[in-house]
């Protein structure tokens, strides 16, 4: 017997004991739609300790008219500053008083999501508050309130963009990747002038257009009873007018004729490379395959890019690759931070060499490794009610959800090596790209600015 002594420390914070049953992955998913069009998704987890509520509005910066870039994000901030029955500051105060955590909101190109994690006993409070935000969120909007939200957003922009080395690169990259008429041409953070330009009338118009129940999905995950959740959601959201969203205009294909190299100078200590392609939208053929391609390139030190760039002769000090799946067009991006004493062109050549690996054989072991990266990541995300809720809110974009969720295990398992190679050939190999080469230059702003750009004919 190896053990010399053993003792148990029993904690009696509750009389309940951990279940000895073997863990199951699949979580039941209950989906329904209210008469006003609101989608409700409930994922109960009896073993959980809390419940998360997410309200996802199917709108983001893609719906901002010209000159109002940043409006969707500004609206998100306004929506924390009180509603008809919730005085300014009370939204967060009531939730925190009740023991809520993870209280926040996010805005991306396609969606705006508000969320909080609460003790299961206080689920009703969270739903009451979110329904007030949805139905009565403009009641307290006036110029001083908008000015407060604007100040928050401008501060956030300075933190995330202006004061960050190469902070402008994502905006420069998207402006090159998508034509000016495309909704993804600009980022949700907006520009200082457009944020200042937005009026209370614009905020009201945006909310009236996109914040109705018919354009929203409520996801509740965690230690909850689906029937009780449905009754609460019917009570608090059921009487809100549907406020159906408008039909979005048809979008022409954003064909790019040439690849482009943009040189960005910044007051920074290091050089960076951002290499990006426009790729299939979320859920379209090629989307998941490119997830796996990213996993083959970068995976905790074992990926092809990592081995090529981070191992001796160490061309870079950091590298990442990701397929960012979006509603209209996705973006596959490789990002590398060039090592001291190495040139951008050396590092770029290293990236190209790593990508050429897709021309050769991809072993079963390697594809299995990439699959595991995603399958495990999804599984680990399911452990928290917020993680599970986020995943389901994201998947709800594809249409009705299946009756159970298992981390999309089967989906990743079904992707073949040939499909990954084919997706890489079609969407990365044969398609135009945008390369942003960020280089240190004195006299430039820290966030960087375009020094030059050059088209590379196909």
């Amino acid at each position, binding site marked *: 017997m190896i053990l010399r002594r053993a*003792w148990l*420390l029993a904690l009696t914070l509750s009389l309940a004991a951990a279940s000895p049953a073997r863990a199951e992955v699949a979580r039941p998913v209950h989906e329904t739609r209210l008469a006003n069009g609101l989608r409700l998704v409930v994922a109960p987890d009896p073993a959980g300790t809390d419940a998360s509520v997410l309200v996802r509005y199917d709108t983001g910066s893609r719906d901002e008219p010209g000159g109002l870039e940043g409006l969707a994000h500004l609206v998100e901030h306004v929506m924390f500053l009180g509603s008809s029955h919730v005085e300014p500051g009370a939204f967060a105060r009531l939730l925190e008083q009740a023991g809520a955590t993870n209280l926040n909101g996010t805005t991306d190109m396609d969606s705006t999501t508000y969320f909080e994690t609460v003790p299961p006993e206080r689920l009703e409070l969270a739903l009451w508050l979110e329904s007030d935000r949805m139905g009565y969120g403009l009641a307290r909007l006036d110029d001083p309130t908008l000015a407060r939200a604007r100040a928050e957003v401008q*501060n956030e922009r300075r933190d995330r963009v202006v004061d960050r080395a190469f902070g402008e690169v994502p905006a420069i990259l998207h402006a090159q990747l998508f034509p000016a008429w495309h909704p993804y041409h600009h980022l949700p953070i907006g520009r200082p002038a457009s944020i200042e330009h937005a009026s209370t009338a614009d905020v009201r118009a945006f909310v009236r257009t996109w914040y109705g129940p018919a354009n929203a999905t409520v996801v509740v995950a965690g230690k909850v009873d689906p029937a009780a959740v449905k009754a609460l959601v019917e009570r608090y959201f059921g009487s809100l007018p549907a406020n159906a969203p408008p039909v979005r205009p048809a979008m022409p294909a954003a064909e790019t004729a040439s690849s482009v190299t943009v040189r960005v100078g910044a007051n920074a200590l290091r050089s960076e490379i951002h290499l990006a392609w426009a790729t299939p939208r979320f859920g379209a053929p090629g989307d998941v395959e490119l997830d796996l391609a990213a996993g083959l390139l970068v995976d905790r030190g074992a990926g092809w890019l990592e081995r090529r760039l981070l191992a001796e002769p160490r061309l870079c000090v950091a590298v990442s690759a990701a397929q960012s799946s979006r509603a209209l067009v996705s973006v596959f991006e490789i990002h590398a931070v060039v090592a001291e004493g190495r040139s951008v062109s050396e590092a770029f050549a290293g990236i190209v060499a790593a990508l050429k690996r897709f021309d050769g054989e991809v072993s079963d072991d390697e594809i299995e490794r990439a699959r595991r990266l995603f399958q495990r990541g999804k599984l680990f995300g399911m452990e928290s009610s917020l993680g599970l809720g986020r995943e389901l809110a994201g998947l709800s974009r594809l249409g009705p959800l299946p009756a159970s969720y298992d981390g999309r295990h089967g989906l990743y398992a079904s992707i073949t090596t040939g499909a990954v190679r084919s997706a890489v050939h079609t969407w990365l190999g044969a398609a135009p790209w945008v390369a942003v080469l960020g280089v240190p230059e004195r006299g430039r702003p*820290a966030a960087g600015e375009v020094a030059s750009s050059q088209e590379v004919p196909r």
Partner: protein
Amino acid sequence: MTAGRPPALALALALLSTIAGCVSPIVAPLRYEPVAPAPEEPFRAVPPDASPVPPRVPLLLRMTTLPNGLRVVLVERHGLPIISVRIVVARGSADTGAPGDTYAILERILQGGGTAQRSAAELSAAYAHLGAPHRVACGYDGVFVATVVGAEDLDQAVGLLAETATGPRLAGRDVADARRSWLHDFTVGANGAGSILSRNVDAALHGSLHPYGFARPQAPHTERVQPGDLAALHAQLFHPAQATLVVVGDATPAAVDAAAARWLGGWAPPSPSLERPPVPASIPGPRLVLVERRGSSQVHAAVAARGPAATGDDLAAVEVLARVFGGFSSRLRGEVRVESGAAYSFGAGLQRQRGSSTLTVSGALDAGKAVPALRTILDAIAEARTRGVREADFERARTTLLAEWRTRVSTSDGLASLVGEAIAHGASLEAFATYPDRIQAVTREDVGRAAQRYLGEEALHVVVVGPGDLRRSLEGLGLGAPVRHDLWAAPARP
């Protein structure tokens, strides 16, 4: 402003504007006209019950000890087939006296280097094969190597962590690679405003030669760090009697015992274990520091003070005190962020440490509003010290701390991280397990006393990273003239 237009017209106008050279995105028109209002209903008038709910999280901690002294802690969680595994060493840089750069290079090797059995690439591939992250942190009070795996991979995970922790490859080439990459990353990282702020807070509170301060790495010294230095440091830190294997998740005691015995049972102590010396007394530095950073539009600033030790009797009261100033709905955050429009990032917290903890109230402030915001923070602290904390602020702070604990222990990795932190600080598992009770037992009077004891006027240090022209207005804070240089540039340890 785009008035209501039919989608087809909007598309046509957008395409037309493209041709004309004035390009607008193709989007649906916004509704500027009113829409049907939501009806008033009686239940809207009064919010549902918002009273606090104490966390009730069932935990069963099982601890065993191997013959070589290594402890094994298991918390069973069978909700999902996930296991968080970590090896925690309750010794850190404050225990060894080793120079900071030697310590950091060892961390780099543990994170990205190889082992006696495998090259760095082979080790990475082994972790990746499990779909497992591989994390390492070497702190003032402890070291951990950690991963999260599927339940079926417990044995392999313990094996990989054991190999990483007990047999890092400390040969010449690995050391040279780690040394070079660390120096480069450190040089780049040290230029960030957040990094400048944090190291100056540490130096101001503890003194630049204190283990919780810092010593600026000197390139010539770093270049002289040899494999033998790293081996000696590794032997000091990684001793089975100083280590604990923490497993949280879908594992049985039998499986954990078997994996621990197989991979760590044969770990022989290389040398006597290292007695934990008391953490030396701090030698506080200047009370007002301005580190000039040209061209930045935000001012990074912190008001900081030393708190009790991580195992101190009044730590719980100080945690509540720190939370009074931070959190989403704190009064101070509302004043600085919402009412004054001075910040986006703003918060307060307590960094627990074995010697003395660090309490900070900090933010990235709009340069034009930075000094008034600092005045607001100092006034809020003075109010807590002289009048105590308000009942509503106290209740909110206590509730949010307990809620945060509930959220963190809701995942295997979050719970394993908290257990590991407690072990590194020298806290008992009993103390860890009774955290909610200790927070619940704190009274408003306890918090008021903690404010008097730890947030006295002379105990506060203000560090500002921003434009040099803030100097004159900073003098108005009543803390004297600011020291105007990076304390990191002070003479380093010999």
